[in-house]
């Protein structure tokens, strides 16, 4: 629990900081844009609160950086020192992505040729085959969900998913609190007017 409270504090700080940066830049935004900005700030804050210890956070940040608009925001949030670290890590990630992609292509071509040779799933292991397919499908879906999940094997994927779930929870908590707080303030504000 200590780690989660630490994470909460870090996240809140960074998120509010990011939001301040956001609202200082533009004045007129419609709801959807605002929502995007809020979510982006939250995601980046969450990822940076992890301080590049987990790969999903690195992946999140690298994705956000790809968009030029967000780069200033990201850099500000992360802080100058971590910038160099991030760059190195991002370079590693990119190379890793390429490696994984080429591996996947190779695997696919191999498996296709194998499948051509095979008559079909051997009857004795039909259930195993089915089970394997199920698990594979699900791990694929999970890979898509967890940021940066494509370049992970099953074991580390589960570990990352664990971590990601924890931080998502923190994020949801903080956002919910803030939303409720502002809502209540608005309500009490409006109710006071009519008293």
């Amino acid at each position, binding site marked *: *629990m200590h780690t989660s*409270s630490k994470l*909460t*504090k870090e996240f*809140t*700080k960074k998120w*509010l*900081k990011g*939001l301040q940066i*956001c609202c200082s830049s533009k*004045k007129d*935004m419609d709801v959807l844009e*605002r*929502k995007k*900005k*809020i*979510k982006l700030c*939250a995601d980046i804050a969450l990822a940076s609160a992890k301080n590049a210890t987990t790969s999903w956070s690195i992946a999140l940040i690298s994705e956000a950086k790809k968009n030029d608009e967000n780069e200033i925001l990201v850099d500000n949030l992360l802080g100058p020192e971590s910038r160099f670290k991030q760059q190195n890590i991002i370079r590693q990630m990119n190379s890793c992505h390429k490696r994984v992609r080429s591996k996947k292509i190779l695997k696919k071509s191999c498996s296709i040729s194998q499948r051509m040779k095979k008559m079909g799933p051997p*009857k*004795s*292991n*039909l*259930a*195993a085959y*089915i*089970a*394997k397919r*199920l*698990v594979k499908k*699900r791990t694929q879906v*999970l890979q898509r*969900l967890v940021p940066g999940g494509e370049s992970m*094997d*099953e*074991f580390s994927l*589960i*570990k990352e*998913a*664990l971590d990601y*779930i924890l931080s*998502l*929870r923190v994020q*949801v908590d903080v*956002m*919910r*609190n803030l*939303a*409720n*707080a*502002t809502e*209540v*303030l*608005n309500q*009490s*504000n*409006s*109710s*006071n*007017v009519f*008293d």
Partner: protein
Amino acid sequence: MNPQLPNTLQQQCFYNPNDHMFANHSALVKPDPGMDEYWAGLHAGAFCDDQLGYGYMNPNPVAQPVETDQALFLQGNSSSVSASVSPKKRKSQSLQVVSDKEKKTKGCSEGDSRITHDQNSNSKEASNNTSSKDKSKVSEVQKPDYIHVRARRGQATDSHSLAERVRREKISERMKYLQDLVPGCNKITGKAGMLDEIINYVQSLQKQVEFLSMKLATVNPELDFNIDNAFAKEIFQCSTSEFPALGCSSTNSAYFQLNSMDQGGVSYCGLDMGINAAEMGLRRSISAPISIPDQTFLDSSCYNQMQPSGVWDGDIQNLYRMEYEQETLIPFQSHQFTGSNEGINMKTET
């Protein structure tokens, strides 16, 4: 017989060794997520001897596709554990028809006797076709950082299966953690089901984030979160220091409870007064609505301390000033602001 049975057995045999593999059998092992208990059960029921084989393997096994996993588990005793798990080699004796239990167990015991013989001698001469792999094992010993894995009796000790086993154990351990994290996962055992739940949970959390950010976008007409970082810290410091028992344990507990909203703004600050008698700071007052605890934690005396409303009003004014300091509100709301000020002043006078 039960047509579904062989499927589940097969499934469990290859992927969920720590699951209710033997649930369908009245035999020894209870359905247990714990790998250790599973093995203990096996040992207790199946094995009397204490002879175990040793195997050495690389701590970073390459993720091996399951097809190459040859001898998964070889059962020692024929009678107790039926051949729900059998190596791929013995396809002919497979689990398709459960009614052929006897046949399978016979086949198993044949193979097992062979293997136990091997294991009795030396671990390196383990199973039938692993001599070549043993050589590679010997050469591998020279590398540093080895995980020493004991191959249990009745198990093949080739490096592949050992690596596979270690990998599976790791995965199952992680799955256990995930079971604790993801709510409602206690009943599900089985990789596919667990993964399903995890996926659902992650998706729901992500959707919640989207929804909340949308809500924030609508509630705050312009991203005017003019709240200090210090204030943000205060929120959590307050909540954690005042209610250490609550801490930041779960999603809904120590924090903000919508139910208490109904009482209106007065009670909040009253609570705040009760709890932070000394602190009339702006930040505390803001944190009051946020750090509302469960009502069980509150003293009734808190509610009585609503007399010094003057101070409360002062707090409220400060609060609003802080909140809307840099304006950026819709003009309507700024009207409200001034209006509320007057209203509050009137209250204090009366």
